[in-house]
């Protein structure tokens, strides 16, 4: 099956890819933003994922796997960057005591869900985004994050508990 795709004409590849990228880029960027909390970085993550999808198009196209492929790259690339950034930034897994994110209006006393997401550790944030934004199953989330199913469940529970603390409300999920 893959062999048939290897010889795909570049013009066809370009057209198929462009159609996919135009249709999905905005959603991908939002997913990336939920994880990294920065639009420019989200744009970079999205472009990396799309570029790698183009390079692998003959293999992933036709199996309905392009979406899963780019989502996986976005998540893994994000986590990989976090590991490298940690050399410099040394984030803490401890929840901060203060509730408001920098830059928020003083009048906005309620922490937004987006701001609360940013307070989670990268891995837990990725779990939440995959499970509740991308609606991925435990199994799919585990595959993307290279975690066991039980680890995904555990991380998900802990992330939601963290969010409840941060939001000061009984978050319904």
């Amino acid at each position, binding site marked *: 099956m893959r062999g048939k795709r290897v010889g795909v004409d570049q013009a066809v590849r*370009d057209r198929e*890819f*462009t159609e996919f*990228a*135009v249709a999905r*880029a*905005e959603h991908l*960027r*939002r997913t990336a*933003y*939920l994880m990294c909390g920065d*639009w*420019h*970085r*989200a*744009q*970079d*993550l*999205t*472009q*990396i994922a*799309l*570029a*790698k*999808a*183009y*390079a*692998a*198009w003959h*293999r992933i196209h036709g199996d309905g796997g392009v979406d899963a*492929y780019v989502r*996986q*790259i976005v998540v*893994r*690339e994000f*986590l*990989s*960057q976090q*590991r*490298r*950034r940690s*050399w*410099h*930034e*040394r984030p803490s897994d401890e929840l901060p005591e203060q509730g408001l994110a920098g830059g928020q209006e003083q009048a906005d006393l309620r922490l*937004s*869900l*987006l701001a609360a997401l940013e307070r989670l550790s990268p891995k837990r944030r990725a779990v939440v985004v995959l*499970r*509740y*934004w991308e*609606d991925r199953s435990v199994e799919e989330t585990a595959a993307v994050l290279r975690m066991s199913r039980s680890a995904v469940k555990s991380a998900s529970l802990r992330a939601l508990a963290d969010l409840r603390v941060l939001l000061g409300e009984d*978050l*319904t*999920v």
Partner: protein
Amino acid sequence: MTSEESFHDRIEDELAGLRPPPIGEIAGDALAQGRRIRRRQRALGVAGGTAAVAGVAAGALALGGVFGSGGGGAPVGPGAWGAAPTSQHSSAATPTPTPTPTPDPTPAYPSTPTPPPNSSSPNTVIGTIPASWKPPAADGHLSDPTNTDGQSVAELLIDDLSQIGSGGSGSAFSGSSLAGMNANATLTWTMPHGSVRISASVSDGAADGKTPQSQCLPAFEMDYCAAATLSDGSVVMVQHNSGGYAAGSSQSTHNTMVMITRPDHAAINVVEWSDGPLTDDQLYKIVSDPRWGLKMDGSFVTHADKVVRPFSGG
């Protein structure tokens, strides 16, 4: 409404209230970047080689230049602080390697023979570690062991860069350290034939209790990977990747990482970004410098702390 829908809708509502920057021509840019990746894959695929060593990607190395922290802008390098010590060890330590007068002319990629892409990881070309890469020479004892800090890493990196013949000067460096765990530095090294953003890190390779990765496992995230265990037990890994775009720039980045985990568990990692002109061989010469360690001689650390300024981070 299910619980997931409730959560999803709430995020959707909050996202709708944001004003993200225009997404621009991301499809076209990604297509162009994807073509470059494919060209590189093909170029690597026809280079040929022997004895593929399988290996894993410890994670893609893209965008390091984009997100790596930049520190002060003062020039750094031998010329900037005079005669930097070429060895931080006592007289019993290993002599400083003889400087190489000219850069290694071997291009980064062709220097590493590569077999055709591994069919199980079509996006990652699996290569081999050159036979010329010998284990680090035995090191001497430190007369005054002192925790390595970011400044020390920067100074040793500059010294190594000078010795491999890539004469130049450094600038815009930053770094940090966590005693006994990690020390790192990032700087821009400007040479007559180009500049490179380069980062070096030394860390405790046994801190996570895991065995160093000595094989490249199938993975999507990188363009090229090679790994091997050297005769002394050191584990070496090389990764190439096409990175993302620097913020506000249309220039994509390329990055190369060479890492060694020695039998004493010291893990030394060097990454260059932005189409850096340094070859894999040159990067290996840096990481295989036996002077790397989480402790260096006190006099070297003191000297580095004096001359590597300004310095941001830990």
